[in-house]
């Protein structure tokens, strides 16, 4: 399964400046592992102690993965994965 991953400015130094990268995997965890194999260190920025970093939000087709199975959220061909730092609203 190939998905498109949108990378926030803060992580682009790791993706060699790329704003959108493609990745393979059937779950979010597999997608991150695949990305980390090409962009070393990306996994460590996103995952702390086996869970998503407190200040990182990841969305699959605009839905927050913390409510859809976390790192085990399944992804399908053509899905859009968006990574964003958590910022204040209101």
């Amino acid at each position, binding site marked *: 399964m190939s998905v498109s991953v949108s990378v*926030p*400015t*803060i992580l682009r130094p790791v993706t060699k400046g790329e704003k959108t990268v493609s990745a393979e995997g059937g779950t979010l965890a597999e997608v991150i592992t695949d990305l980390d194999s090409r962009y070393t260190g990306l996994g460590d*920025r996103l995952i702390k102690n086996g869970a998503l*970093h*407190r*200040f*990182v*939000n990841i*969305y699959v087709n*605009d*839905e*927050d993965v*913390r*409510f*859809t199975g976390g790192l085990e959220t399944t992804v399908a061909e053509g899905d859009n994965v*968006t990574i*964003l*730092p*958590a*910022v*204040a*609203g*209101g």
Partner: protein
Amino acid sequence: MARYDSLIDAVGGTPLVGLPRLSPSPSVRLWAKLEDRNPTGSIKDRPALAMVAKAEADGLLRPGCTVIEPTSGNTGISLAMVCRVKGYRLICVMPENTSEERRLLLRAYGAQIISSPAAGGSNAAVAMAKELASDHPDWIMLYQYGNPENAAAHYATTGPEILTDLPTITHFVAGLGTTGTLMGVGRYLREKVPDIAIVAAEPRYGELVYGLRNLDEGFVPELYDASVLTSRFSVGPDDAVRRTRELLEVEGIFAGISTGAILHAALGIAARAGRDGTEADIAFVVCDGGWKYLSTGVYEAGDDAAAAHGLEGQLWA
């Protein structure tokens, strides 16, 4: 009831109106809670009033006091009204990339504005307000992101109003900013309607707003408790603007941009219910009217793409 002793007594008690044309079918119904009908035109009148009342009851606020608050607009405007009525001085720390109308309104109410940099959005405003508050121990920061009275106001008023008007409610959809509305209304409705879905619509801004130096500068409001929510959607400016225009065009409701984001999530939920063949009564929040966003040109733009362009770089929710 239509008679009140003063303006602040008129906060809340807003109408819930059906959306017969935007609801997908007779068995999946959308309902809009018109929070623009509050005294300063937004849902924030509820938490602003509650936070000030609690600070007064605790003896923190006395006549002549100065209140400081980080805000992207609506909370500041609500506080400005309450402070004017009660005789407090208000300083709002507000990101510089917010609409001109918000600044004009704040000044009209006599509030002082300190601008925080656009980069980092509200994060920068929060950091700056905290610093100013610690430099001026006599100033009172109500701090909407962590003040339990923010969520409590919605638990005590918004939640019960919605349930009274819509006892068959199945879904509640609101915007996620301070998280106060979703935490307060969500907790109340969960207690009364065990199977209810509590859905968050989170605005997704332009890149500038996410321009932190490192991930540890991120921010999750102290009030946030993910266990209250069922799902959380990120809604970008294109969808928010398209739905804001649709709400005006189809149902005649003139709402602000964040309401468009909430409606987008509500319509997504409605479509799911339709596919599953379940009955649904979906209540969503109209946070404010469109008045403060007229200068962005989103209502008069020729098409949705041009309208979204008007929001470039702005904190629109």
